């Protein structure tokens, strides 16, 4: 992030405010800045450059997002803007802002836990059998801790609270959901199904 440049240029500062209202087309509850995919805004002589890091390799929203960003910058009279991709470092759900997490929850999507904290979470005894892989001492959110084998996904650690009633008594219905970034859960307490933004 070029914090220095942001502070130095009112035009760049304005662009960040505009981007704060550009919604993700697949999760229209949060903006591209909430999602943490806008990595930089750079003022060039011939226009603004908005640097975006893609969420998933195959995310079909990538092109739409670039167009939405470019359109919004134009509409605010700050154009022309070009959107460029920066692959490294890879996007992580840890970049979703606290405000973005609140918006997700209000929209009915359980936000992702921190990738770091999930890696140390323990598997609850009810979440699988107790022999074989289930008895491995620890497993990361991605099913793997350093030096340990992969674990079948149903044995992974999870601590996903219901976004509606807040209950921790939830169960996973499907490892994948309506978009690449989500899985499907159900709350055992209030019985509502909900989506969970997978930590990655």
């Amino acid at each position, binding site marked *: 992030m070029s914090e220095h440049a942001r502070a130095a240029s009112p035009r760049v500062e304005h662009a960040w405010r505009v981007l704060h209202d550009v919604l993700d087309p697949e999760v229209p509850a949060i903006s591209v800045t909430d999602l943490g995919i806008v990595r930089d805004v750079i003022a060039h002589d011939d226009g603004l450059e908005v640097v975006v890091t*893609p969420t*998933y*390799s*195959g*995310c*079909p929203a990538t092109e739409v997002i670039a167009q939405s960003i470019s359109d919004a910058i134009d509409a605010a009279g700050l154009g022309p803007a070009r959107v460029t991709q920066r*692959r*490294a*470092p*890879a*996007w*992580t759900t840890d970049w979703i802002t606290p405000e973005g997490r609140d918006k997700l929850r209000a929209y009915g999507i359980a936000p992702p836990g921190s990738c770091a904290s999930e890696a140390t979470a323990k598997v609850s005894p009810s979440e699988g059998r107790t022999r*074989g*892989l289930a008895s491995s001492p620890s497993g990361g959110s*991605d*099913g*793997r801790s350093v030096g340990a*084998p*992969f*674990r*079948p*996904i*149903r044995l*992974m650690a999870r601590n996903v609270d219901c976004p509606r009633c807040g209950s921790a008594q939830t169960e996973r*219905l*499907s*490892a*994948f*959901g*309506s978009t*690449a970034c989500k899985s*499907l859960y159900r709350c055992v307490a209030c019985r509502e199904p909900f989506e969970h933004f*997978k930590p*990655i």
Partner: protein
Amino acid sequence: MTTAFAPLPTTASASGSVASTTTESIVFAPTPLQAYLMRIGDTCLIHTQRLAEWSGHAPILEEDIALTNLALDLVGQARALLTHVGRQTGFDEDQLAFLRNERDFRNVTLVELPGRRAGRDFADAVVRNFLLAAWMNVLWSKLESSSDAEIAAIAGKAVKESRYHVAHAADWVVRLGDGTDESMRRTRQAVDRLWPYTAELFETDGIDTAAAEAGLGPMRVSLKAEWDAIVAPVFAEAGLNIPATGAFRSTGTRGVHSEHMGYLLAEMQTLQRTLPGGQW
């Protein structure tokens, strides 16, 4: 969104005979380093094509969604690699995917073997998914330190995606292998059918050596120990034996494919071959 098809070619000549409407293939002559990357990109691409066959046909809805989501990640990885090699060779990703001949594809044979359309079992899809995802995961983790910054960046994203793929596939291997007598029988058959094709995942040739010397990526043989360490405990949990590796060697990475590849490409390429440059 624009729809910009070229006019349909005339299909009948004056003499009444039917003329070909097929677009000419591109002449693709990669360097060893480019061929190395195409092996990975083509493996992702062809695996995507086979996974996509399950769309609307998986045994349960959740798995239908899962297989197509895996395919989505894989096609994204394939696009990134094909685009990268395309920049060096003067082609775009679509030309490389849709206008190459069979011999110019360098995917491992394992991914082109028949899928749902040929009546192969869901167990085959599960076992292949697992064996491949484990291999891709080890490969991507090593490519994160590639001397090619773009490849390292692609790998940095893909390795995270592949972890979820392995975990999901492992779940199903255990569920089927350690399930009913029938699911175990069919999963064992799938392992026996597919295992001979895993030897190609760890072969070494001049292309691997060139890539390793350039720091572009690892030799396939160097992936074996870590792959074994992922596969063995899951097979043990599933009650599956790891078969012995025989003398058979598949040769997809050298461009010599199984009899199934031509049919796969015909289906995958027909639209762009018939309507060159078509977009939607």
